């Protein structure tokens, strides 16, 4: 192969980095994952470090309520900003692929929640109760939602199409 051909091939390869730009739904999936990880790492981190929310009802309600509201506000504001920046074509109703991806995420989350529920709801009442049980239930929901969002994200990244 001549040096000139090699050079033009290099230029072409350089121009195509293989990166795909993110669409609106993928960006919102990222937003969900990041907001969820940040919010609930903080919540469960505080519980593990001995915060009274791990033992008493009112501190738990207060801490969880504050973090859940902050999480919701972040996601809502972030979605509004992303929506304003996205072209109108991307904000159209979810198409067949988007719906298939959503179902795929929910399917994975279902099994995580099913196992979580068996542990929290069927095993733990025999050995524990109260706030600890409620926190374990919350952990099961958060873990399932996180799996849901991560599967959605991976599906968009890998170009899964159902």
């Amino acid at each position, binding site marked *: 192969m001549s040096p000139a051909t090699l050079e033009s091939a290099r230029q072409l390869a350089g121009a195509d980095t293989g990166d795909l730009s993110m669409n609106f739904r993928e960006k919102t999936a990222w937003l969900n994952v990041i907001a969820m990880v940040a919010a609930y790492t903080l919540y469960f981190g505080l519980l593990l470090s001995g915060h009274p929310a791990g033992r008493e009802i009112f501190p738990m309600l207060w801490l969880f309520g504050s973090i859940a509201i902050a999480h919701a506000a972040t996601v809502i504001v972030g979605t509004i900003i992303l929506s304003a920046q996205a072209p109108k074509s991307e904000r159209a109703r979810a198409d067949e692929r988007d719906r298939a991806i959503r179902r795929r995420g929910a*399917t994975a989350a279902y099994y995580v929640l*099913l196992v979580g529920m068996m542990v929290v709801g069927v095993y733990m*009442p025999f050995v524990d109760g109260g706030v600890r049980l409620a926190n374990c239930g919350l952990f099961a929901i958060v873990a399932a939602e996180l799996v849901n969002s991560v599967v959605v994200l991976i599906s968009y990244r890998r170009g899964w199409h159902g």
Partner: protein
Amino acid sequence: MAFREKIHWVTLVTMILAFGWYFLAYPWQIADSPAAVWATAGMLVPVTIAIIVAMTVATAFLAIRNRGEVDVKEDERDRSFHMHGTHYAYYPLVVGIWVNIFLIFWGIGQAQQLNLMIATLVVAELVRIGTQLFLYRRGY
């Protein structure tokens, strides 16, 4: 009817019968006492055994009668039905856990909480299997 659809029907009927018996025969009059937790444990053992035995026998019987379909892998349509089913079943499960968390603060008894969780699991599974059967019947 396809082999997979028959298996879903068997699962649905088995679950309705097993958990129908469980909730009807449960000693609700002692649901507030600590003994009710052990009653739950005692009743879940025969329910679990009955489901395992019924499913094993029925699956073996259907597999013998439908030899040609036994080794056929799940196709795209089956996977799509499965995802539809689990998608719809996910929501009752989430709602059930939230209700349970709120009821813990409300002071619900341990056995009642346990039964609520079992009921949530059963409803979610019935929604999942029911959705799949509906889609198989409709031929979607």
